[in-house]
């Protein structure tokens, strides 16, 4: 079968995993292009075609260009409605949407900010542990909510994996590599049992790859 388009992304990047997983379950092929961070996205060819110069970036076989990981994943899913990735009704689709939004804004945003703080992307010598703490607490609140509301007998929206499960699992994997060490993960047994179910699905196991969970949350880099 012919690929539906090309994807520039990094196989380790959470958003790229969303898209490849959606494609795998939808039975569609997406052509992952070679991409070297700092090189490909600075090359004139790339920047002229994709001015925002961020990954993932998708270019359909018909020339259709799309940005934003979750949006690309949703588009891929929408091309195979029988896959059940967006549920089986308008209301299912809305609930899939709701969980994706929750995962990205109420969990992942905080992982990203904490990563930026500890890796010193923020141009200030002093690491701000106050902000770190406040943001970590917001994430905890969301994780507690997810922990209490997961029904382990099914998936988030239907009895089958939907795009919501793929994206929540991707977000959890990322959090467990940055903000959630072994001690923190032990606070959310349902969440991590759910993660194993989703990421262990034979169709997407290799896309999610090795867990690479951290023992302790990533510590702030020492001031140079």
């Amino acid at each position: 079968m012919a690929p539906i388009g090309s994807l520039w992304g990094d196989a380790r990047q959470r958003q790229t995993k969303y898209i490849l997983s959606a494609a795998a379950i939808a039975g569609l092929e997406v052509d992952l292009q070679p991409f070297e961070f700092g090189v490909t996205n600075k090359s004139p060819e790339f920047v002229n075609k994709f001015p925002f110069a961020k990954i993932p970036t998708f270019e359909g076989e018909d020339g259709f260009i799309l940005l934003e990981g979750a949006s690309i994943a949703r588009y891929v899913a929408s091309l195979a409605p029988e896959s059940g990735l967006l549920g089986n009704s308008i209301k299912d689709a809305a609930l899939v949407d709701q969980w994706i939004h929750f995962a990205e804004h109420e969990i992942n945003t905080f992982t990203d900010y904490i990563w930026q703080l500890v890796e010193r992307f923020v141009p200030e010598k002093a690491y701000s542990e106050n902000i770190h703490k406040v943001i970590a607490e917001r994430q905890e609140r969301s994780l507690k909510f997810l922990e209490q509301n997961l029904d382990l007998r099914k998936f988030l929206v239907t009895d089958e994996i939907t795009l919501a499960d793929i994206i929540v699992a991707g977000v959890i994997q990322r959090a467990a590599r940055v903000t959630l060490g072994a001690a923190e993960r032990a606070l959310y047994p349902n969440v991590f049992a759910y993660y194993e179910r989703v990421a262990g699905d034979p169709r997407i196991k290799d896309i999610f790859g090795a867990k690479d969970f951290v023992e302790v949350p990533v510590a702030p880099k020492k001031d140079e």
Partner: protein
Amino acid sequence: MAPVGKLYCVPVMTQTKTIKSVCAVAGLELEIPEYKHFSDNRTPEFLAKFPHGMIPAFEGADGFNLTEGVPIARYLAGRAPNSGLLGSSPEDAALIDQWVHFFESEVAAHTDIISGMLKNFFPYSKGIHTFLAERQLRSLLTLETHLSTRTFLVGDRITLADIIAASVLQRVVSVTADAAVRAKLINTVRFLETIVHQPKLEAIYGPTEYVEKALQYVPPKKEKAPAPPVAPKEKKEKEKPKKAADDDEEDDGNLVPEEPKEKNPLELLPKSTFNLEDWKRAYSNKDTRGADGSLEWFYANFDKEGFSVWRVDFKYNEELTQVFMSSNQIGGFFNRLEASRKYLFGSVGVLGEANASIISGVLILRGQDSKAAVDCAPDFESYDYTKLDGSDNEPDKAFFEGALAWDLEVNGKKWADGKNFK
């Protein structure tokens, strides 16, 4: 026509404007019940429908409950396919999706954190403020180029993307995108004006407050009640709904305790040459050890008549378990010392490992009596305070420097994690 459902929300939130606008264009009637944030969303009835307790929350007339602003907007838009709000092809829908996601992650997220810091929901950091404003500008310039040849974001008519864009941008131009920045965003401003003045949407969006100069942080004065001072151009709303609105979460706001009625005895001490705020800045901006480090600054500027240095040790180390929990305990202790912020600096850590650790560190405080500076914290007596004499006493000096540099080691236990009070 019967209402399609109820929306629990507060008027000023961007998500509220988005959802109302979608309904206006889609020709759907939306019921907005009386709603008091922080109380109505904590009732058992509300939580039974919406367990996470957040707004906006949509209760469909048919009993379908949905949360998360954009998903609610998208669902309602989908109920009126002829409105064109979601485009007329999968590609259109995907592009609308893309722009919505872009606005939320690459524009609104930054305004949210910056605004949160300016209103004291988060501790303020100038570095983070600058960093986020720069990233946001990059996104806005991408948008600017896209809009240079277009009236609407996708296709030739208004879609969900335009509505969300306008809601987000209306806030951006009142917080970060000031007159100087807007000079680079002519098409974006033109676009914003076009959308907010659409006849069906004008009343929902209301007037746009264009800020002259990007909002700057003004630290709260202790004497006032927790009122975040923001630029006068901000909309005049009642304090409480405004705070709730800019954050769709439950923020219990500023936890600054009230000023004690009698004057603090530490205020009555004779003036000192050592400026605690300058020290805090030096500690934050310099390396601790080495040439031109903060320790060097400290020894050059410290006034041992006006201030004193103390070793602080937790009394019940055998109770300590996980390192991160002990670290949280220090954080809690520091939170409760807030009333002494003007008189105190601390660097305290957890040394050792889980179930074999101690809490230990130093305080630099005004005056010669530790109790006067720390007794505002109800749990101050859980710690031992030992005055350190830095001048000639080598072990004291080594302890002090280790606590500041976060490399202190005591009885073989190494510094694992710590907190600063500054």
